[in-house]
């Protein structure tokens, strides 16, 4: 017999969870008048890793975060509506032939940024992803190689505690194994696994930054194993998912960094030599200014260019906001005789990269396949938008929710002149121009989607799906402040430093020159650590 938990019991359980990965009681606090070594704008996958690195090297670091510092065990409900505050809900205007939804798609708010609601899917790119132009004559090459990022992937997978297969079938041989065994396959993953086998498509349990077993994290402490709660996309309440708020942020705070929350940056102030001298932000309705020697802008593929455009900074190339990309992310859904219960288990449990460079492709690049679980409000909303079902037909379809499973792709997206972020004439509540995001899939993306839709429909039919339907979709916000070797065509140099502003670094998905055919979070973190290391090396050299 189970009784309702008393509040004392709950508090005890909560304090046990929190103590595993909470900050030390005293966080270093810097005066706004002190010229700190670094201000980091944004605490997501771009800002948090470098914050920890810089603080560990003894630098004075202040991170400015627009959102709150949530206490997941106390604050996070397993309820989609209640969790809407995790998303970046300041309005963006979506333009173009394939206007992108935002809000619960893509950007996050709060310490941890969009890692608060990422699926924790952390495949590495393959080396040829970084050489798309060399290979196909379209898109852009990266000014760095896989080997430059590989040590960071190794480090990240072990620090975060990535769960993954003992032998990963794709990509170059790995120097280190995943530290934890894969998470269990849920219903959607089992359906995809057996149907892909029938089609001769190899599959593997995916690499997920969620713990399949209790894990000791250096500098942070013990984190509890994933309970298969299935709610990664709207906040992990147990700390099993490696969002930044339970990994790099506490590491940074322990090393002396300050995280200043609910601080919305509105202005970057410069001197005559175009160096940034201070960052102005609004906190509690008042403007404050933090003096600093260096700025690391890590606000993501839309807010980062928006901040630069508002301040008319780092844009002598005219490339700020340009080359906006969003992965092809077509989903195919079906309903099965089996009980799937799509609310259980890590949503993306199974992967195939056999479509990385399909033999019959009529497009550049490629994509990966993954199984997907889904929560009911998200699914119902997609049924409404994607199929246009309403009335009794909608309710009838939704009664099959427990028998629903999906597969989707995550594929490359070519940069294009017609896809960009600009400032609109419309002002937000702070008086800042709202961003307008133009996006239209090009011929390459359309062909890739068509190839993938045909394949996924066949796989799902083999799996026994009925009522198969496709939901067109693009995911992730990429590009807009391209990294490159040429100041005429890129915003930051290969070290991540702005060509025009000597003490400004950008480290987030905005610097990607090509989209890569995999989920971006792990690579954003790798770039973040690399940027910090290059910065520290440069600082050391100038001291000597």
């Amino acid at each position, binding site marked *: *017999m*189970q009784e309702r*938990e008393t*509040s004392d019991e709950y508090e005890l359980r909560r304090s046990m969870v929190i103590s595993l990965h909470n900050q030390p009681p005293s966080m270093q606090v810097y005066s706004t008048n002190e010229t700190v070594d670094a201000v980091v704008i944004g605490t997501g996958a771009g800002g948090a890793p470098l914050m920890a690195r810089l603080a560990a090297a003894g630098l004075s670091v202040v991170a400015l975060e627009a959102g709150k510092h949530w206490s997941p065990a*106390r*604050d996070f*409900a*397993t*309820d*989609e*509506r*209640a969790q*809407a505050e995790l*998303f970046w*809900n*300041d*309005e963006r*205007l*979506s333009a*173009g032939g394939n206007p992108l939804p*935002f*809000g619960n798609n893509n*950007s996050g708010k709060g310490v941890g940024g969009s890692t608060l609601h990422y699926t924790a899917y952390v495949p590495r790119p393959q080396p040829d992803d970084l050489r798309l132009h060399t290979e196909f004559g379209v898109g852009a090459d990266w000014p760095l190689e896989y080997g430059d990022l590989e040590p960071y992937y190794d480090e990240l997978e072990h620090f975060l505690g990535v769960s993954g297969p003992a032998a990963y079938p794709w990509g170059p041989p790995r120097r280190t194994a995943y530290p934890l065994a894969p998470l*269990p*396959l*849920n*219903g959607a993953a*089992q359906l995809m696994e057996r149907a892909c086998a029938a089609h001769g498509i190899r599959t593997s349990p995916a690499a997920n930054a969620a713990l399949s077993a209790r894990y000791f994290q250096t500098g942070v402490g013990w984190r509890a194993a994933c*309970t*298969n*709660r299935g*709610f990664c996309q709207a906040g992990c*309440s147990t700390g099993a998912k490696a969002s930044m708020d339970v990994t790099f942020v506490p590491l940074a705070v322990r090393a002396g960094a300050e995280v200043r929350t609910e601080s919305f940056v509105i202005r970057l102030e410069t001197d005559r030599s175009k160096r940034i001298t201070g960052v102005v932000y609004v906190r509690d309705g008042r403007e404050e200014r933090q003096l600093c020697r260096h700025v690391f802008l890590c606000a993501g593929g839309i807010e980062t260019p928006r901040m630069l455009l508002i301040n008319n900074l780092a844009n002598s190339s005219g490339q700020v906001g340009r080359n906006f990309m969003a992965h092809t992310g077509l989903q195919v859904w079906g309903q099965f005789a*089996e*009980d799937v*219960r799509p*609310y*259980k*288990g890590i949503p993306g449990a199974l992967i195939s990269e056999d479509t990385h460079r399909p033999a019959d492709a009529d497009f550049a690049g490629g994509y990966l396949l993954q199984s997907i679980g889904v*929560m*009911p*409000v998200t699914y*119902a*909303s997609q*049924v*409404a*938008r994607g199929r*246009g079902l*309403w*009335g*009794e037909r*909608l*309710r009838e379809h*939704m*009664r*099959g*929710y*427990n028998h629903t499973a999906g597969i989707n792709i995550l594929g490359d997206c070519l940069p294009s002149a017609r896809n960009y972020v600009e400032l609109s004439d419309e002002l937000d509540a702070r008086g800042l121009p709202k961003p*307008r995001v133009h996006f239209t899939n090009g011929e390459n993306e359309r062909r890739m989607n068509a190839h993938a839709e045909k394949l996924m429909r066949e796989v799902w039919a083999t799996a026994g799906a*009925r009522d198969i339907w496709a939901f067109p979709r693009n995911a992730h916000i990429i590009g807009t402040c391209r990294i490159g070797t040429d100041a005429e065509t890129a915003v930051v140099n290969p070290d991540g430093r702005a060509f025009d502003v000597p003490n400004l670094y950008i480290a987030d998905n905005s610097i990607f020159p090509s989209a890569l055919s995999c989920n971006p979070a792990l690579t954003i973190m790798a770039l973040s650590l690399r940027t910090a290391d290059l910065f520290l090396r440069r600082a050391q050299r100038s001291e000597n």
Partner: protein
Amino acid sequence: MKANTYPRGTVRALVETSLVTPATRMALLSRLVPDDAPPPPEPKPRFFDAEAFDTLRAACDRLIPQADRPHPVQLAGALDERLAEGKGDGWRYNQMPPDGEAHRRGLRGLNESAHAMFGEAFYELEASRQDEVLLVVQRNEAQGETWKTLPAHRFFEELLAELVECFYSDPLTQEEIGYVGFADAHGWSAVGLNELEAHEPRAIEDMADAGARNIGRIRVAAKHGD
């Protein structure tokens, strides 16, 4: 695919148990209308005028019919409240004006189309004619002055998606589709195909197949302690 129906009472039976975390319980209880609640008072719109609100309520009744629900989810009221508070969801179509204006104009457009097709306001039409109006609006083929400057299909999509999200956020609607992901305190150990834990409700057809009608309900009740 056969329609599944699930036993009633699952949410109420689970929500007070230790299978649900306090944060989730609080979120559910804020939306869970008691079985014996009196009918809600006639809603008074804060954002829409009376005619727009009547139009909206009529559209809600067709888009998400709830005749079977003793306490229908207050969909029109929720949209009105959201707009009165000026809340947004992070984006809008560039082709569309701000949400409040889009909905005011779109509801006017529904009435214009209703007049053009049947000579009456939308909310005065019989249900089948309302459906015809909604369908041409959804297909972006509707007549009316408003639709010359407001894309009818985008208005329809935005309205439908918001109502659907509101409806499926309701715990009793989630019960109708057999969702119990809110039982989050311990997570799940049985996650594979056809693997169900004791407190996951069985579809009524499935139970009939197994000759064990109502077993899901009994198990949940046992957990609750009675």
